[in-house]
C-alpha cells in the first residue's frame, strides 16, 4: 500500500504540475448565478435542432436537466420515482424543460436509440437534446447527472445544482430546489437557495485534449 501510495503520489504530483500549467490557459471563469445562460443549438432525438435563444423568446422559465439513462441517480428520479416528469408536467404552462445528454460516443448513456427507449419507458414529456461533443455541458460546467439549471425569463441563471436535498440512490429529497426556484421566480423573487452541489454520476464526457 505504501509503495503504491508513494508511486501514485509522485505520478500525481507530476500530473498535477503539468495539469496546472495547461489549466491556466484554458480555464474560463466558472458560470455564476446571475450570468447569462450560455447559448446552444442541439439536436433532439428526432434530429431537429433546438436553440436556447429561440426558446427564450417565449419569455418562460427554462429548466435544463443533465441526463444519462445509465446513471442510478437519473433512474432514481425517472424510474423509481417520477420527480422530473411530475415537476415538468405541473409547471408545463410556465416552464420549458429540456434534458441534455453530454455522454460522448462510446460512453455510458450515449446513443439516439438508447435515449429514445428511456424517453418512452420513463414517459418523459420533454425533449432530450444530444450534446455528445460535450461543448454545452462544459459551457455550463455540468459535472454530474442529474445537474440542474433554472434560467429565468430574462435568460439569466437563477439556480444551479442538485435537484433536491437527498443524495441517496432511492429517496427523493424533502426539499426540491428546482421547484422552490420555479415558485420563487413565478412570484417575482430570486430563489432563496440559488446554488447547491449536484449529486450523481460524473457526466461521461470525451477525454479532453
Amino acid at each position, binding site marked *: 500500500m505504501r509503495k503504491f501510495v508513494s508511486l501514485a*503520489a509522485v505520478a500525481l504530483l507530476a500530473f498535477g504540475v503539468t495539469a496546472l500549467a495547461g489549466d491556466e490557459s484554458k480555464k474560463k471563469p466558472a458560470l*455564476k448565478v446571475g450570468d447569462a445562460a450560455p447559448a446552444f443549438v442541439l439536436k433532439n432525438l428526432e434530429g431537429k435542432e433546438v436553440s436556447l435563444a429561440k426558446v427564450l423568446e417565449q419569455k418562460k422559465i427554462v429548466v435544463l436537466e443533465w441526463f444519462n439513462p445509465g446513471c442510478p441517480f437519473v433512474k432514481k428520479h425517472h424510474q423509481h420515482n417520477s420527480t422530473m416528469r411530475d415537476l415538468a408536467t405541473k409547471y408545463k404552462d410556465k416552464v420549458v424543460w429540456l434534458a441534455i445528454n453530454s455522454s460522448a460516443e462510446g*460512453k455510458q448513456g450515449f446513443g439516439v436509440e438508447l435515449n429514445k427507449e428511456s424517453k418512452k419507458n420513463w414517459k418523459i414529456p420533454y425533449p432530450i437534446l444530444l450534446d455528445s461533443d460535450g461543448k454545452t455541458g462544459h459551457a455550463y460546467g455540468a459535472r454530474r447527472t442529474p445537474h440542474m439549471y433554472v434560467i429565468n425569463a430574462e435568460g439569466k441563471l437563477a439556480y444551479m445544482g442538485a435537484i433536491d436535498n437527498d443524495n441517496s440512490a432511492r429517496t427523493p429529497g424533502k426539499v426540491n430546489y428546482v421547484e422552490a426556484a420555479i415558485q420563487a421566480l413565478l412570484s417575482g423573487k430570486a430563489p432563496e437557495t440559488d446554488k447547491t452541489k449536484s449529486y450523481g454520476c460524473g457526466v461521461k464526457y470525451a477525454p479532453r485534449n
Partner: protein
Amino acid sequence: MTRFAPLLALLLGLLLSSGPQAFAQDEEARDLVQASLASDHEALSPGTTTTLVVRLQIKKDWHVYWLNPGDAGVPTKVELTLPKGLVSAGPRFPAPERLEHEDGFIDFSYEGQVLILVPVTLEDSPEGQALVGGKVSLGVKATWLVCKEACIPGQAELALSLPVLAKGAKREAKAPVVDQVRAAQARLATPLPKGVSASFSGLELRFEAPEAKGLTWFPLVPEAAGPADLKALVVKGPRLAVAYPSEVRQSKRVKGLLAIKGSKSTTYHWVEVSSPTP
C-alpha cells in the same frame, strides 16, 4: 458480511439489463464492494474504548468516494447505531487518493481496501454500568457509490456483539484487528506539525512546509467549489497556494486535508483556516 448489497445489486442488474445497452454486471455488482466489521477488543467495560474497523474491499479498477467526492460521485457514509451508554466521536476516514480523469475532472476516492475506524466508548455512567454482565450490539450502516465507467450505489448493514465486563476487568485485544488499526493510522489525519504554516486571505490559501517534497490539498469546506474550479491543488516543493473562486471568498473559512510528502512518507493533516476579519 453484506446483507442488502446482493439484493440491491441484483435489482440494479435487472434494471440495467432492461435497456438495449445491457451492462454485463449482474454477477459483478454483487462483489464490487465487500463490507465487513471487526472490533480490536473482545469486550468493553465502563470507561473503555474499542476501535471498530469497517473494511470495504473494492473490486480492482473500481472506486468509492471520500467525504468530498470531488467533481463527481457521492460521498461514502458510515452511520452508527449504538445502545444507550455507548458513545462515539464518529467514523474516521482515511486520506483519499486524487483521481484525475481524462476529461479533466478530479475525484477524491479510494481503490482496493478502505479501512474506516470508529472508536466506541462505553461510558462510566449509570447507563454504562447497567450493561455490565450482558452484551451490546453495535450497528454500522455503510452507504457508497462505486464507479468505474458506470456507477452503482450500494450499502451494507453490519453489526457485531460484544460482552460487557465489569469496570477494570482485563479485556483481550484482537491481534489481527489491532494490526489493521495500525495500518489504517498511516492514512489518518494528525494535527498540523509545528513549522508548517497555513493562512487564508479570503482569496488564496497558502501553505508552507519547509522540509516538504510536495503538498496536496484535498478541500472539504466549502463544498460549492469543485476541485476543478480551484487552481493549484498539488505542487512539488514546500509551498502551495490555492486560489479560491469568488463565491467562496464570501464563506470566510476553508477546511480540508493537507498531504505533506516527505522524503520517506506522506502525512495527512486536517486544516481549518479563516480569513482575517475586516
